[in-house]
């Protein structure tokens, strides 16, 4: 709101190009799936999955900051939104994924293939 009457058109187009490039990179890696990234493991999941997750977070950052204009909001308004969401999402995800791994380690020995 501080810069309510300025036009941010240039910034918007730059962000569009960034998002398009990132999506293209994701899709190319998703189709090729290089063995060195796909079949190895790094902190529990493959480096390819880390790449996808990080690029997704980068995209989320640009959508929230540029398109949803969080960068123009007051600092503590932004924090009340971003910190709350990130904390709760990380919390829930961590618990559920740990639980999922536990279910796998408990139940999979009982499945006969």
């Amino acid at each position, binding site marked *: 709101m501080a810069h309510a009457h300025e036009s941010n058109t240039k910034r*918007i187009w730059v962000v569009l190009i960034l998002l398009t490039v990132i999506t293209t990179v994701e899709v190319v890696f998703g189709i090729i799936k290089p063995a060195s990234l796909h079949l190895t493991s790094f902190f529990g999941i493959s480096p390819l999955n880390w790449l996808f997750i990080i690029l997704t977070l980068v995209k989320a950052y640009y959508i929230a900051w540029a398109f949803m204009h969080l960068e123009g909001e007051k600092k503590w308004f932004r924090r009340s939104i971003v910190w709350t969401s990130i904390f709760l999402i990380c919390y829930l995800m961590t618990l559920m994924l740990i639980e999922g791994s536990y279910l796998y380690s408990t139940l999979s020995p009982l499945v006969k293939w």
Partner: protein
Amino acid sequence: MEANIAIPLDGKKTWNGGGQKPFGARYGKMMMWFFIVSDALTFTGFLAAYGLTRFKFIDSWPIADEVFTHFPGLHGVHAPMYYVALMTFILIISSVTMVLAVDAGHQMKQKKVAWYMFATIIFGIIFVGSQAWEWKNFINGSYGAVKTTDGKVLQFVKDGHQIALSDFVVGERTDGRVQHERHNGLWFEEEETIANYSIAQIQNSYKSNSDIQIRSELIDPVTKQKIILSREEGMAQLAKTKLVIEGANLKVNEYGNTIFADFFFFITGFHGFHVLSGIIINIIIFFNVILGTYERRGHYEMVEKVGLYWHFVDLVWVFVFTFFYLV
């Protein structure tokens, strides 16, 4: 006791989003943001449940590349990811036209706002249509599979590539099974579409064609590919068949775990419903723009608010895309 009264009653104007501006944002926009936070947590709940289930069945989860392989106009061509990448791009473009509408609103350019809103609505409709097409392919299925008595889904491969039941099943079905319809059975009951092939037909075709192998759901941890069984093992598994599956629904799924289909329908469906409601809200605001409501009000903050919702829908799709199709 002034703190008890947030806004003096006589200063309240219903349609300017509230006179007070905590954090420098009008109430309307602030509440939209907090609605988005809560909605984001709803989606987190769904994606977390999806993650839990996937981790629970980590050794047999369907591989997205083998599930979503269609592209309009390319029949029988293995095209993983292209279509969903196109959908993602369409949604990003619609986000851009939306933010351009908000930008034009800041400059009070009514015509520009209207045109950008219109473009956003069109791209939104294209996206929902694309999702419907994706659903159609998923529901109809592309190959067909069988399910055994112990709940395993068996797919058929030739030279390492999956083939459809229609590619190798020969002969006539001899079990005399016909579709139950009102005119040949009970008039008050209907039956879901039955499979094109009988179990015996598939078993016999497998026996007589030594090129065909069976692919199990189990993933080889080294190659991260589904394990292909030997002819003998395949025969033993196939003998346990209890059901022929063509396509996917909430009960059976030719791609593997049924719960994969359940989550697919539920999460993309919930997202699609958000897009649909976003389109409807956008249309309402679009007409308000044309009628000059915001011109008379003196600001285009309503466009900004629906813009926030629309971008949120895009934001969610970015995560759905990653966790359903990429990871």
